[in-house]
């Protein structure tokens, strides 16, 4: 692991916005709150069992947490760490996404081959959609018209019309899709395939495959290069892609679909999020139990921060 305190100091001096990165610790039943300023854990809150997906409401007044083994989505007050109430979620919620309307959570129920749509205001389930085996990756288009669920064993991206809450397309991807994101104002939809070792880029308009991105990490067997979580930089020019047990994050040029860099991080890197101006990226490293801070401009790992056991999800919250 790379620990460069000098670089950290440099980085701090240029930080304009304060904020926090919230990290779910899958095997500690906690969330760790990291200050994007000091790069230290400033709070740890208890959650339900096996917390994984984490997302903030649009005004950041609430944080939603998938407590997978408690079979619920918990709603927490991020200023106090208190659980406000639970939401119905279907069994084993893993990942979810909040619709731009700030009301509808689309939740992947991993054990049930179902995507559950929950209204966070009325706290009721408004739809359940049958999808493939082990749904995991969730995304929603910026205009809110399309939601995506990827299914790990069926190896598909399922396209949901959010008006009718019905599937309108199912597209095959490589083995074990894990994460999905819309890019470039919703014109592209990207899916990572962990076992296939690829990212597939779809044209949202016709759901046709537009590009496939492969990875090659020097000194790491291709079988261990397993793309999982990914996020886009400002303007969607680049994607930072977690490559699981290869312990690297890839930097992909989103125009040419070529990999430009590989950054060594902690062990079994899984998900990630940026700070407010997207100058720093925080990756969760499941096996090493820490979070790596990457300086986006220099593409270097500048610090690792110890969190709980098996950190999984990450979400940013501004504090001023």
């Amino acid at each position: 692991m790379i620990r460069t305190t000098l670089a950290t100091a440099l980085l701090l001096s240029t930080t304009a916005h304060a904020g926090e990165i919230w990290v779910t610790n899958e095997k500690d039943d906690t969330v760790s709150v990291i200050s994007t300023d000091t790069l230290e854990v400033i709070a740890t809150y208890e959650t339900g069992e096996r917390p994984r997906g984490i997302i903030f409401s649009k005004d950041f007044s609430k944080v939603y947490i998938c407590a997978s083994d408690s079979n619920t989505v918990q709603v927490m007050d991020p200023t106090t760490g208190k659980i406000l109430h639970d939401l119905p979620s279907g069994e084993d919620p893993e990942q979810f996404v909040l619709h731009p309307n700030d009301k509808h959570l689309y939740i992947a129920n991993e054990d049930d081959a179902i995507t559950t749509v929950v209204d966070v205001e009325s706290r009721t389930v408004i739809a359940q959609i049958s999808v493939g085996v082990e749904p995991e990756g969730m995304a929603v288009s910026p205009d809110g018209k399309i939601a995506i669920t990827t299914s790990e064993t069926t190896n598909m991206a399922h396209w949901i019309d959010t008006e009718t809450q019905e599937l309108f397309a199912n597209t095959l991807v490589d083995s074990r899709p894990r994460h999905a994101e819309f890019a470039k104002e919703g014109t592209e939809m990207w899916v990572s395939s962990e076992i296939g070792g690829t990212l597939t880029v779809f044209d949202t308009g016709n759901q046709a495959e537009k590009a496939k991105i492969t990875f090659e990490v020097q000194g790491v067997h291709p079988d261990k290069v397993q793309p999982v979580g990914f996020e886009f930089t400002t303007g969607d020019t680049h994607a930072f892609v977690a490559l699981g047990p290869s312990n690297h994050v890839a930097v992909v040029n989103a125009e040419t679909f070529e990999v430009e860099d590989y950054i060594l991080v902690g062990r079994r890197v899984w998900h990630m999020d940026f700070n407010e101006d997207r100058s720093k990226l925080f990756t969760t490293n499941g096996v090493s139990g820490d979070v790596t801070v990457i300086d986006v401009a220099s593409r270097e790992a500048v610090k690792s921060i110890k969190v709980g056991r098996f950190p999984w999800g990450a979400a940013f919250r501004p504090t001023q």
Partner: protein
Amino acid sequence: MYRFLAVIGVLCCAQPALSDVTLEATYLHVEVPLPPTLSNLDPIPHDIGLAGVRTGLADNETTGKFLGQTHILTEVMVSEGDDALAAARTALARSPYLILHAPADVQTAIADLPAAQDALIFNVSEGDISLRDADCRANLFHTLPSDAMRTDALAQFFVTKRWSDLVMIAGTHPQDLAYARAMRRSLEKFGLSLSAEKTWEFDADMRRNASQEVPLFTQDFGDYDAMILADELHDFGRYVLYNTWEARPVTGSEGLSALTWSPVIEQWGAAQLQSRFSEAHSRAMQSPDYAAWAAIRTLGEAVTRTGSAEATDVRAYMLSTDFTLAGFKGRPLTFRPWNGQLRQPIALAHPRALVAQAPLEGFLHHVNELDSLGLDQPESTCEAFQ
């Protein structure tokens, strides 16, 4: 006489069909009498293997419904003394896909049937090395690891731990002898050897006097680093642990074991497969269940990707570099094109936790690290795939 247990099919399709394909397969289980063991603590489930194939079928059906593909499974149980070959002929007349839980000699006899020449048969029950070696068949694939893959996994662990002074106690059943042979071969492959070997030939009931007998029985081994048990029917091995003269780890068939699958595997998304399985079958998933699951999932994957249920297309796809199976073991699983063995990591586990997973770090291979486990191409005398 054999009996049909069920015919399961899915005929629905809510989504636009990409291809209108039906894959029909048979699960054929030939029942074999097992000798009695000292303890009845761990009975073999009556649906061993079958439960795995059912779980895999459900996975295939879910995928199939989005593609307009139908999966049909016929389950056939051949009772002791009944004609397995006749059952196989009937099954092969219906479908070229046969998932087989049967002794090795029955497997080769079925594979040699004229009706089986264009079939794809999956061995889900036998670790017999010869089936991957001189007795291999071009139509016989193996989703269960060979004994050699499992003993190589343990040997890698011994090397990593620097446990070089090893002793072995082997039972007298053919399965024990086969395991002991595989172990000797693995130790030689990784530059290790046995300093002593003994045969377990007691006919006393060890539940009552293991604490008296085992220390004496193991005393003349002297000092050593680890003990290996070849007790594949789980007869005496459980009484050896903690009763050895020297306080040393016990490995092999008991203690630290090299396994295809175990309830303690929860990484790599395995927790999902485990819970799906145990919810459906009210028990934990075992190795033959996993092998049967992998077999039917291989067929499902081939049909999904090729859009064809023709055996020649499925076989070509399975042996191509395009094929990968996501098998919840942390790496893509593929078939060895020289003997039809499914490459896969091997769990090194005790009953309460996963200790390590082979191939262990540092055991390299110029094609695929998984080929450091089991018969590698230059070692295998299998010619049927050429």
